[in-house]
């Protein structure tokens, strides 16, 4: 069922069993799990079914610290969320990503990779991916040309990625959601405030507004906040009438530990003998599976480095590419995407099947850092909510890790006697902790309501419930305790399915 909140009678009271705030990958994945159930699900979406600049403008905000993309353009604010322009890169977090690592501050999840495995398998279907298998051996059976650059050993391994078509959630899930009798989708229903009881232990209702001037209240037994990492933090911080620090923020953690994947050109791979390296090849829209080079858990532990991967692009093509940070530079996400696509087109050109030189492009987690954070500005958006500011901070650990990963790859190529690695200039001096102007991110926002069993270290518990509030849950990558190397969509979808199962098991107890 679909209701346009702009057309509802002003000051309506909407009631249901579960209120899901946000209709992106996380919110829709949860809603779909409750399709045709006996429960009334309220799904709130701030935008409509198409891009609307007035709504998109609500995401605008300042950025400070490390240069970043325009906040207004990073996430899409309509039904389907950012799946409206994502690229479909999917892979799982590695077991080490969930572990406590003494060299990574605040690392360690209260769940393991094994806990997520069954949900990863289910999430594959949501995102129209292939079988839940990310081993090279498995994919070599159907792709005999997949020859690894190096025989896998205890240093370098091949991390498999699968590619979603990419699934646009607005296209795939609009009809099932709209046609479901028990799911009440409200578009143009921006949550501007969450109201708790007197001691902020229980959510009573949320307030939704839109630029048509309508205001409504939504009451439910359970609330799931699924608005993306920046907006989740923003609405919690802005809901500060009962607690000046905001909701779920007794330990000053909401908005902190904002993480991105650093995505950056980092080096060159030179081979003594030309090779197509088809295992690592990516042709957007065609490639379903490929690999990136990764460093084993053993080496990460020994070298005390972060987890990251390297993709390979023929150097001749890579030299035609402009840095993403320079392309995705418009406040209008449609324009920024056009710029990116134009950049991709420029990259295309005559490419030999076999190449002797490849560009190395690193994607790597950043360590949780409380100073990398979302805060509120005095300025308010058109619905009266304080705007969010991103202060993005990177540390020496990220840079040292990138450098060390290249050393390890170079070492293994030397042992094999097949080639050499050259790092880009910004990595030459091991004492230089600065970042070059072309440093970019993957538009992956994580960590602002991080997960921990300890309320002093995390905003949500292992079930994504906000510590200290019995009926408020959070879905999405804001719950990630650490970022791993892969793009977050597969993991956040798996985590959302896990949350949904938890709610099914406990709905009558909450």
């Amino acid at each position, binding site marked *: 069922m679909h209701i346009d909140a702009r057309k509802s009678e002003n000051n309506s009271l909407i009631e249901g069993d579960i209120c899901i705030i946000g209709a992106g990958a996380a919110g829709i994945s949860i809603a779909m799990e409750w399709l045709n159930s006996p429960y009334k699900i309220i799904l709130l979406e701030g935008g409509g079914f198409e891009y609307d600049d007035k709504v998109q403008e609500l995401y605008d905000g300042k950025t400070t610290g490390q240069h970043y993309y325009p906040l207004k353009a990073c996430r899409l604010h309509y039904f389907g969320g950012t799946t409206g322009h994502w690229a479909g890169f999917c892979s799982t977090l590695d077991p080490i990503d969930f572990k406590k690592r003494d060299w990574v501050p605040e690392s360690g999840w209260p769940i393991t990779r094994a806990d997520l495995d069954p949900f990863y398998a289910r999430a594959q279907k949501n995102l129209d991916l292939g079988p839940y298998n990310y081993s090279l051996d498995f994919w070599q059976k159907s792709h005999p040309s997949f020859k690894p650059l190096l025989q896998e050993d205890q240093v370098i391994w091949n991390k498999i990625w699968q590619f979603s078509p990419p699934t646009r959630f607005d296209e795939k899930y609009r009809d099932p959601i709209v046609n479901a009798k028990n799911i009440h989708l409200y578009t143009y229903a921006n949550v501007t405030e969450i109201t708790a009881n007197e001691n902020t232990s229980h959510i009573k209702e949320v307030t939704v507004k839109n630029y048509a001037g309508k205001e409504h209240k939504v009451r439910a037994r359970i609330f799931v906040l699924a608005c993306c990492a920046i907006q989740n933090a923003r609405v919690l911080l802005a809901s500060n009438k009962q607690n000046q620090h905001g909701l779920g923020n007794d330990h000053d953690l909401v908005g902190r530990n904002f993480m991105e994947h650093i995505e950056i050109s980092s080096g060159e791979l030179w081979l003594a003998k030309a090779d197509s390296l088809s295992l690592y090849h990516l042709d957007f829209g065609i490639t379903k599976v490929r690999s990136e080079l990764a460093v084993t858990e053993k080496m990460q532990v020994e070298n005390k480095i972060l987890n990251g991967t390297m993709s390979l692009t023929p150097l001749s093509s890579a030299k035609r590419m402009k840095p993403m940070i320079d392309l995705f530079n418009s406040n209008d996400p449609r324009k920024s995407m056009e710029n990116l696509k134009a950049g991709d087109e420029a990259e295309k050109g005559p490419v030999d099947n076999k190449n002797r030189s490849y560009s190395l492009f690193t994607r790597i987690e950043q360590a949780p850092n409380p100073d990398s954070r979302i805060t509120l500005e005095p300025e308010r958006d058109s619905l009266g909510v304080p705007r969010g500011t991103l202060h993005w901070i990177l540390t020496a650990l990220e840079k040292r890790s990138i450098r060390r990963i290249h050393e390890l790859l170079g070492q293994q190529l030397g042992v094999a006697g097949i080639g050499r690695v*050259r790092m880009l200039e910004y990595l030459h001096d091991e004492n230089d902790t600065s970042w070059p102007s072309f440093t970019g991110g993957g538009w992956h926002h994580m960590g602002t309501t991080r997960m921990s069993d300890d309320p002093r270290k995390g905003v949500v518990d292992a079930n994504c419930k906000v510590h200290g509030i019995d009926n408020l849950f959070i879905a999405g990558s804001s719950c990630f305790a650490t970022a791993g190397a892969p793009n977050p969509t597969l993991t956040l979808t798996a985590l959302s399915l896990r949350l949904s199962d938890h709610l099914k098991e406990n709905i009558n107890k909450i």
Partner: protein
Amino acid sequence: MKRSTFIYYAAVGTAMAVVPLPGCKSNKLSVLEKPQLLSRICDVNTIMDIGKSYRNTFPDNSRQQLMDHIMARTESKVIFPNASNRSIGSFVEEKVKDDFKSGRILVIKGWVLSQTEARQCALFSLTKQN
């Protein structure tokens, strides 16, 4: 890639070299100052840059010391003074791999190199300088 240029220059450099390896003919130098794999992927200027950078970092290395280091026996291998160029070449190539296996690695001008091949570059740059 300017592999042929490199080989040409190496030959000229050898002709100019006046300090032969003890017990070796002077043309052995061309083997020592030519990092095999690196010379297949880098041009002369790159090898020169690497060599100069190595010598800046380790200024105390004379030509003779560099040659001695390159020819020094390893735990498992030794090269005899009258060995053929081919044998010396194989010995050095193995030594480069051993360096990588053992972690004797240097990062010079961004290149992740074995200690031995870095010394080869240094020797090459010395030859050109002279």
